[in-house]
Structures are given as structure tokens and as C-alpha cells.
């Protein structure tokens, strides 16, 4: 029971962490609160629907490709011309991109929600250390955990990662040191596209459906988790997302059945309390000391 709960909580925490890193990365590098993040996710989910009769690994590859493609194209068409614009302008542009992609999807491919039957193996349960664990929960944990490890490696061990972290913290100074905007900004969108696509793969497997509006809730989770952890810290954002996911699972486990419908109300009330105590987020306090 405990192991099952842990797999479920850590898995959902890892999924939410992917969502929050995607939000915080673009906010740091570009000053962009990207409300089109959900639509990048939706596009990748749509690929899962299109490829529903194909082998699952192939569908995942296509979903990642489409997620990255939509992210990069949105950068080129909408955000590149607006580089240097104030955050409000960028945010409004991201609303426009979000609504445009959603409208195109609704008018063409997804006028209503479409079912995507989960792979049979995902509905199985396997015995693990004496506990019955859902394969779907293990997949969530495995995919999202692997993605987090990959992101940690990229950010911590590669030159591009160091440049991305520096740019996310202080773009002007990073630029003064020779970090190229034309490298780090598209790279950030590629990372965001991959993260959104992996999140989409997991969400489609969990929900069994794809719709034009499906990106809204994950995007909100990404924003809330990033605010909780600290918008200017990628580690903080990941922590915020992880805690949000783990707390969601915990509340589902401990709340009485008739109160589960109010899970989000309880969760976000707690979030308000946290933000009253630490308005800058959990990990945004790592500022440079001046003296």
C-alpha cells in the first residue's frame, strides 16, 4: 500500500515537475509567461491520437517531434519578432498563440474530445516488493523521472545547460559574457517542446482522451508549481511542481471520499498560505549577497 502510494505520488510529482520546468525556463530566459505551453502539449497529445494504431514507441517519437515543432515554430513566428518587448506584451502574445493553436485544432482535427484507448499493458498491475503497483503509475514515474534526470544532466553537465541556467537567471549579464540569444532561446523552446510532449504522452495514457482544451489544466499546474517553487529558479520550479503533484496524491489518499471533490480547494488554500510566508517562492531566495 505504501509502495503503491509512493510510486503514484512520486510519479505525479515528476510529471508536475516537468510542467513547471517548462514554464519557468521560458520565463527566465525570455521573461515570457507562456500560456501557449498547454497548446504545445495538446499538439503532442494530438500526435498520440493520430498514431493510435501505430506501435506505441513510434507514437511517442512522433509526439515529441510534433511538440518540439510547434514550440519552435511558435518561437520563430510569434516570439522572435517580440524579443526585448515587455513581459505584458509577451504574455498577451502567448495568449494569442494559445488561442490560435486551440482554435485551429477545434476547427480542423479536434472539434470534440477523441478517445485514445490506452495500450493494454498500461491497465495491468504488477507485483513489486509484495505490493500491487499499476503499470501506468510505473510508466509515469519512469518516463517523467527519466526526463527529469535528462534535464538535470543537460542543465548541470553541458555547456548549453550552463548557458541556459545563466540566461534564466540574468539574461543581460549572460549576453554580456557572450551567451548568444539565437542559441539559448530556440534551445529553451526545444527543451520546452520535449518536456510538454513527454507530459502529453503520460496524460493521454492516464486520461485516455485528447481534446483541444486539454492543455489548459497542465499549463495552470505548471504556472502554479513554478510560482510555488520560485519563478527565477529552475530547481525551485521543479521542487514546486514535485510538491504539488505529491500533495495532490496525498490528499486523494487521506481525504474522506465526500471531500475528494474539494481536493484542489484544499491544495490551493495551502498554496496561498505558503506564498504568504514566502511570496518569492520556496527556492527563489538564493540571491547573490551584496556584502
Amino acid at each position: 500500500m505504501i509502495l503503491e502510494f509512493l510510486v503514484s505520488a512520486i510519479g505525479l510529482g515528476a510529471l508536475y515537475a516537468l510542467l513547471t520546468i517548462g514554464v519557468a525556463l521560458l520565463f527566465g530566459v525570455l521573461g515570457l509567461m507562456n500560456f501557449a505551453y498547454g497548446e504545445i502539449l495538446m499538439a503532442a497529445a494530438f500526435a498520440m491520437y493520430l498514431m493510435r494504431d501505430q506501435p506505441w514507441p513510434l507514437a511517442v517519437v512522433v509526439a515529441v517531434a510534433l511538440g518540439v515543432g510547434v514550440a519552435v515554430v511558435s518561437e520563430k513566428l510569434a516570439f522572435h519578432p517580440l524579443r526585448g518587448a515587455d513581459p505584458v506584451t509577451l504574455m498577451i502574445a502567448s495568449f494569442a498563440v494559445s488561442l490560435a493553436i486551440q482554435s485551429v485544432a477545434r476547427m480542423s482535427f479536434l472539434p470534440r474530445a477523441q478517445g485514445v484507448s490506452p495500450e493494454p499493458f498500461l491497465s495491468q498491475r504488477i507485483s513489486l516488493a509484495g505490493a500491487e503497483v499499476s503499470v501506468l503509475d510505473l510508466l509515469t514515474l519512469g518516463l517523467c523521472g527519466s526526463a527529469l534526470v535528462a534535464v538535470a544532466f543537460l542543465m548541470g553537465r553541458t555547456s548549453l545547460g550552463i548557458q541556459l541556467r545563466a540566461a534564466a537567471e540574468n539574461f543581460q549579464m549572460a549576453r554580456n559574457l557572450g551567451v548568444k540569444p539565437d542559441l539559448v532561446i530556440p534551445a529553451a523552446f526545444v527543451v520546452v517542446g520535449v518536456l510538454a510532449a513527454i507530459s502529453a504522452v503520460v496524460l493521454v495514457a492516464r486520461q485516455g482522451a485528447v481534446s483541444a482544451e486539454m492543455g489548459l489544466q497542465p499549463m495552470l499546474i505548471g504556472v502554479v508549481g513554478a510560482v510555488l517553487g520560485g519563478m527565477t529558479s529552475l530547481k525551485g520550479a521543479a521542487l514546486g511542481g514535485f510538491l504539488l503533484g505529491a500533495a495532490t496524491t496525498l490528499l486523494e489518499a487521506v481525504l474522506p471520499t465526500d471531500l475528494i471533490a474539494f481536493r484542489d480547494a484544499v491544495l490551493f488554500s495551502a498554496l496561498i498560505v505558503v506564498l504568504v510566508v514566502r511570496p518569492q517562492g520556496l527556492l527563489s531566495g538564493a540571491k547573490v549577497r551584496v556584502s
Partner: protein
Amino acid sequence: MVLQITDAYVQYGASVMAVQGCTLHVDEGELVSLIGQNGAGKSTLVKAVMGMVPLHRGSVTFDGAPVTHRSFSTVRNRISYVPEDRGVFASLSVGENLRLGGITRKDKRALAADIERELERFPVLAKYWSRGASLLSGGEQQQLAIARGLLLNPRLLLLDEPTLGLAPIIVDLIFDVVAQLRADGMTILLVEQNAVRSLEISDRSYVLQAPGRVLGSGTPAELGAVPAVVDYLGFSPADVEVSR
């Protein structure tokens, strides 16, 4: 001439003029200091060189070529700017901050040797190589910022208030390092409020008075002959013992 600023005006908003008609130059291998009190426009002028604030009027040339919006990316690769707030990346380790300093360099082997050189110059950075930069003291951060700036192998080093708020022993260390860099032939523009120490080690100095006007320029002896400069500083630069 490495840097030439001619009749520069910088304006914040509709009415606040931060720099008014500044003209200065820095020759090859020179250490030139920009002296003045808070709000004199020193940092604003340096930011204008880096393209961080637009010139309202006037021009900047670097190595004889006008610095325009288009050419800033090229200029940035040849000028190391160590800002007043040090610009250290708190979320990166000391080592990662240093690696960023040489991010544009292709000669990775020479870069590794240069990092070793900076670690010898600032041993505290070797000691805290893996430590997060946010955990360093102000003096340690300043050493990191200067070392990182030097790893670009810059044509021009811009130091903006490098001793601001630091303990006297660190102030001595920073001025010693700057003097040594000058002796090694580096071209430096030093922005400082510590007029005496700056005059001691500089080839020439410019004295700025708010709002961004040059009161006088030259060697300490030449500045000492300008009554407005003597009045402004409260002492005669001619009395400063030059240590070069």
C-alpha cells in the same frame, strides 16, 4: 585608441539626463579611471558602451569602428564588463561561472590554462570551485566576477565600482590586481568612487560631476591644476602619490 566616447548624452525617461556631453578616450595599454560621486553618471556611461542603455546623442567607437546596435554582439566578445552588482550567477557554482567567462573562446586548451592562472591569482576561487556562487562573500564574488571577466582575454576591461562595499583588505587586493593587470599591458577603464586609490594607479583619470559632466581629465598633476576638480574632490589630485 581602443575606446573613444564623443559628446555622449544618455537620458532616462523624458527628462532625466544622466550623462551630458561626455567625451573620453582610452588608449592601448592604458589604465583610465572614471571618478565621481554617486549619481555622477559613471556607471551609465559604461552601460552605454556595452549597449545596455541607448545613447541619446554622441558616439562610441571601439578600435576605430563605430559601435552601433548591429555591432554590439561583436564588441561584447572583446570587452569584458564587470558590473557594479558583479553579475555573478547565484545558481551556478564558482567553476561554472568561470567557464561562462570563456564561453566564446574556441581555444579550449588555452582557456583551461587561463582558468588555472586565475585560480592562482584568486586562490579563494580554487578553494570554493564547486560551491554555489550565492554562498560566497561579497569580496569573493568580486574576485569571481573579475576572474570571469579576464577569461575572455579582453581587448578592454571595464570595471564598474569593483571595491564598492568591500572590506579594506579586499579593496587592497582588488587595487593590487588592477595595478598588476595594467603592468601586464591590459587596457582598462576603471569606474571608482575611491578617488585617491584610483588616481594612484591610473595613467589618466576623468572626474565626472552629476549630472554626467566631465569636470576635468588628465594625470593627477593636470587634474590638480583644475580648481573645479580640487573643489569637487576636496583635495588636490596633484598631492596623490602615483604608485605606477
